[in-house]
């Protein structure tokens, strides 16, 4: 498991108050019972943790999976200047 994946899993687990072992890369936030404002909060916590901005197009709450979310985080991290 990559460092980014580990950290995203921890954020989701903490926010949704679910066992980290139940989170799979192919789970959607909806599958994990995270809906409405809770889902928006998870995205915000991820943005704050990594100090990135996730565009709306990268966060689809209906069909997007945790794996998609990690991919979006990695894309944003790759674009960040090394010193920030």
């Amino acid at each position, binding site marked *: 498991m990559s460092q980014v994946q580990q950290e995203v899993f921890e954020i989701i687990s903490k926010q949704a108050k679910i066992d980290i072992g139940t989170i799979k890369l192919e789970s959607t936030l909806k599958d994990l019972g995270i*809906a*409405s*404002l809770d889902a*928006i909060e998870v*995205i*915000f916590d991820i943005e704050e943790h990594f100090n990135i*901005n996730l*565009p*709306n197009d990268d*966060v689809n709450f*209906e069909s997007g999976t945790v794996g998609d979310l990690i991919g979006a985080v990695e894309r944003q991290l790759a674009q960040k200047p090394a010193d920030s």
Partner: protein
Amino acid sequence: MRRIVITGMGGICALGHNVPDIWQAMTEGRSGIAPLQHFDASLMRGNPVGAEIADFEPLAFIEEAKLPFLDPLSQYALVAAGEAIRQAGLDFRNERTARTAVVVGTGAAGEETRDGLYRKLYAEKSGRFHPLGIVRIMSSAPCSHISMAHGITGPTFTVASACASSNHAFAQAAMMIRAGLVDTAVVGGTEACITPGVMQAWEAMRVLAPDTCRPFSANRRGLVLGEGAAMFVLETLESAQARGATILAELAGAGMSADAGDIAAPSDVGAAAAMQAALNDAGMQPGEIDYINAHGTGTAANDSTETRAIHTVFGEHAHRLAVTSTKPMHGHALGAAGALEMLAVIGALRHGIVPPTLNYVAPDPACDLDYVPHEARAMNVRAALSNSFAFGGLNAVVVVRQAS
């Protein structure tokens, strides 16, 4: 029971600075949505849009000495109330004054003033605030200024229930008239919410559409904020007839409910309860309604939920209704939404034209009603519902019918 009629209306929004201009735009299906002009929105995601009031010159409506006291929130309210009271032909400098109420819905407050003061404090590190900050910001300022400008001394207060504020205001005014507490009311809503702070807070919830507002359509991507005010003069049928006033429509009933559920997600049960309560209050059957001006925000959740609620209340008749959202034209003006939408409802009742739902691209299976896409429709509207469903599960619905 005392019957309540509407004898004056006024409005200002992205479509115009008076009711004739706004109604003209609604019948033509023009949209006031455009890239933001009021401030630099470069910190926001994407290219935010809004339905902003353009080319507004307050001095054309309000005397210069009064302006320092007025956030745009109160300026818009005064413009709309002035137009409504002129149309009604009422003067309050007589015994009517104490028997008239002012009830104004607003969801936020004097946000432009608030933003300006906080910018001084946090960005410019200056504690020297303009002394009129509080009286501009307070959410009750608009109703106070209407009362002061027109000499109205009856019950005067603000109603706050987020996006349902205006419709809750109509209900409060109507109940006071029915109870015999007052005979006349100036009622409506105002909002001036397109400021950096407010926009950023809405953006953070990821409910703002990046392109435009597409209610009930496939590929809808959220709401677009708007601003403005609309005000109405309500009075008893007896009072209007006695003075030979032109009756624009009858306010037949109002219904309110709370979801007791989620702070953001809507509930079809709560929405249906408010619509049913409004019909019951008016003593009307679903089959007597021809048009619903929907809450129709353009978010995925609202529009499918509202559609289910309409099916619940209207059954077979649901497919015979024209259901439109005028928010793609004037934007979602939050606490002023129900008031601006009342302009569309009264226009439909009086002129036999239902304003369309703009920006509809394709059907969504979860939204299967007749949304009158793209172009206004000529049809007789005997009676109509105006829906408002707020965050926090606060619902208010008003029933209006043709003046008989």
